[in-house]
């Protein structure tokens, strides 16, 4: 079983809609939970990360973690065509020697239609 599961979509929404992206994870040892955004033919870039259960807000983006159910969510308010990208959830695990590993989900491809 893959450690981070994510529905690959694709997901298509009209401009201005609220978008909900979700992941589940299986490893209780995961410490940080991240969302990366990847535009076509680019590397992933970090959107935001959280540590504890609860919500974290950054502008139009809200990340939510529920450790009891091992559930990770990203909400995008007032979605824009520029938000069209693949969104990757990821979790970190301490791998020793002062370094960490990042395990990714498959990514959800989002299209925001003008």
């Amino acid at each position, binding site marked *: 079983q893959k450690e981070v599961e994510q529905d690959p979509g694709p997901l298509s929404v009209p401009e201005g809609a609220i978008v909900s992206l979700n992941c589940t994870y299986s490893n209780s040892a995961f410490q*940080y939970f*991240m969302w990366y955004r990847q535009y076509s*033919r680019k*590397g992933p870039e*970090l959107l935001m*990360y959280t540590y504890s259960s609860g919500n974290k807000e950054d502008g139009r983006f809200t990340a939510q973690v529920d450790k009891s159910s091992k559930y990770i969510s990203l909400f995008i308010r007032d979605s824009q065509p520029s938000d069209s990208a693949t969104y990757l959830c990821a979790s*970190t695990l301490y791998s020793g*020697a002062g*370094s960490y590993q990042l395990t990714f989900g498959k990514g959800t491809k989002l299209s925001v239609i003008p």
Partner: protein
Amino acid sequence: EAGVAQSPRYKIIEKRQSVAFWCNPISGHATLYWYQQILGQGPKLLIQFQNNGVVDDSQLPKDRFSAERLKGVDSTLKIQPAKLEDSAVYLCASSSNTQGANVLTFGAGSRLTVL
């Protein structure tokens, strides 16, 4: 701050040929990662370096893939001989480990097509 540099951006080879990818991480970043991203999938870790030592290479197909990070800075990933299933984007990332969240900064990737 300059980003993570990778080259070449694109490479097309025949199966059984060899290829090498180069990565220059962000200055001062101790940890360097190589990920493989197959079309429609999330990145999969191939190898992780801490300075010039290997932390994890458990998912690296060692019969055909090799990687090195000389002097704890630049890194090279080599594939020899290549197979059709190696067609993917090879992403290099680095992190400074100054934050517990271990934020990775990725390069744009090297896209490999094996014919």
